[in-house]
């Protein structure tokens, strides 16, 4: 079973003469444990693709299946609790880490768990474990402003992993980092994909950062132009 199945996914903004096709007929699959990059310049439609898979942006046409569950088929499947699916099956990593500024590193991870109905004690235990595993044990009680860019992004990764999602979607996760920290984050994602058996879909415009990825899809003008398979 695939973690992500996308079939002829199309997203059109606007109507009539002003209609703009952001993504056209995108079709691909991602297996659990695979690290996949969607590569393309700004405005190519890669973020639209990510948000459509991430249940944020309703596809105009096509099909999206996450962890075997049919999510979209010519629009969202009626009756689905999109928030619950996002909470349980998806993890998000953002360009600018998006940590909540008034929560400590530990609380930033705990909030994702508490939203998913874990008790405070369970959430604290799991969040502490995760942060320690990402070498952030000494930063548990620090606010995001006291963390370096790399540390903040690792906390964001911990938050994305908190609910053990089947799919992790990362939007330009290295854009705010220097090359070294960027490479470290990508290496960490690769390690986590294997360890957690999660499919990780990374959107980036930086070719240097996709070294060692299992698949790379290049997007140009809304069309997936090329799929490159690499040895892990």
């Amino acid at each position: 079973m695939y973690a992500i199945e996308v079939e002829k996914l199309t997203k059109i903004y606007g109507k009539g003469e002003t209609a703009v096709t952001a993504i056209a007929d995108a079709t691909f699959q991602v297996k659990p444990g695979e690290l996949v990059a969607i590569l393309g310049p700004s405005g190519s439609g890669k973020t639209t693709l990510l948000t459509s898979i991430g249940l944020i942006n309703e596809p105009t046409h096509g099909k999206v299946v996450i962890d075997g569950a049919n999510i979209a088929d010519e629009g969202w499947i009626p009756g689905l609790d999109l928030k619950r699916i996002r909470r349980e099956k998806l993890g998000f990593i953002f360009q600018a880490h998006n940590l909540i500024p008034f929560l400590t590193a530990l609380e930033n991870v705990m909030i994702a768990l508490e939203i998913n109905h874990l008790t405070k004690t369970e959430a604290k235990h799991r969040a502490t474990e995760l942060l320690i595993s990402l070498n952030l044990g000494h930063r548990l009680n620090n606010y995001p402003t006291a963390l370096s860019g790399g540390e903040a992004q690792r906390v964001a990764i911990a938050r994305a992993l908190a609910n053990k999602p089947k799919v992790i979607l990362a939007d330009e996760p290295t854009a705010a980092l220097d090359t070294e920290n960027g490479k470290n984050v990508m290496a960490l994602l690769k390690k986590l994909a294997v360890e957690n058996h999660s499919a990780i879909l990374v959107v980036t415009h930086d070719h240097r950062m996709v070294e060692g990825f299992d698949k790379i899809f290049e997007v140009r003008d809304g069309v997936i132009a090329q799929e490159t398979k690499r040895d892990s």
Partner: protein
Amino acid sequence: MNLAIRDIRYHRGRFILTSIGLGLLLGVVMSMGGIYRGLFADALAVLDFAKADIWVVQQDTNGPFAETSRIPEDIKYRIRAVPGVAEASPLSFQTIQIERQGKPFRFFLIGYDLNGFGGPPGIIAGRGIRQKHYEIVVAKAMRMEIGEKIHLGLHDYTVVGITGKVVSSGGDPAAYVSLADAQDIQFKKDNYAIRNDRERIGANLAAIQSLSPAQAKYLQQNIAGITESTHTVNTVVARLAPGADLKEVQERISRWNHFRPISVEEQTKILTKGMIEKARMQLGLFRIILLVISAVIISLIIYTSTIDKIRVIATLKLIGSQNRVIVGMILQQSLLMGAIAYGIGYVLILLTYEKFPRRIVLEPFDLQALFAIVMAICMISSFVGIRKALKVEPAEALGG
């Protein structure tokens, strides 16, 4: 995890400053309410302390507080004789402004019959007036010492006692002197006026041709008495005998003595509805305006705070947070801000209300009602922020 508390903890400096600002505003609202209540208390203070059932005043007037009323002092005997009246006592009232220690010093002088009632209600220091002349009991608010002298009219008066919070309807502190002294201060003419009156009345009498020489001589001898008389009072207060009917007594005084007998209920109405109505309405309006300003400020603060948190809210939505988590964060912050600001305002007013120039009366009901109103305002004001928050798209969390 309580996000509202976490946000406040992180931005505590900003939150405390905002709450202090709002607290000052609510303190002003509370003081307005206190002044509003104080106006009533002040207006009715003399009325309450006199403990009279009827205020007999000059016919066709609303005296002695709302209008001038002058009646002969001797009326007290006629009022006492009315069936149903247990006791009657004359009173005089006068607002005096003198200069003391280089500053204007204003107070309300009450003259009372030392053998009657209507005198100082409770002496908190010194003693009451014992001598018929030149002794004065002053309200605490006049800040005078026992033994201190004050010059009124032609004489010096010695402070022999201090009484509590007795004020005029205008809020001026009250002082008590004997009726005779009060009449002297209020009605005694200066020598020039007396001489003028003597000459005028004498000339008028001389012009009356119909008087016999004996009558003319007798009247000439009494001119001095007529011109120097100060036996006038502003009101005679009466207390009813047990079981006496108020309406019946009023009817008798009105019909047979040709004075206006005002009941306490009527006097209360004259004082509250007539004299302080405009001030009361003005204060009420101010309170409403201040509450509207508070509502606008709270709305703006909550809205601005929500705008600051757009990315946080979008991120929370993106990671699957329920709307109630976001709504709860905004609502709790708004209510907490209101509660803390109310507390600050309350402490502020509690520490300062006795230092206000006018009496502030803090009624528990008013304070509780204001708390409920503030909470309601906070709740309604937070809707602006909540509406904005609910419109935030999770996609706004993406991008740089």
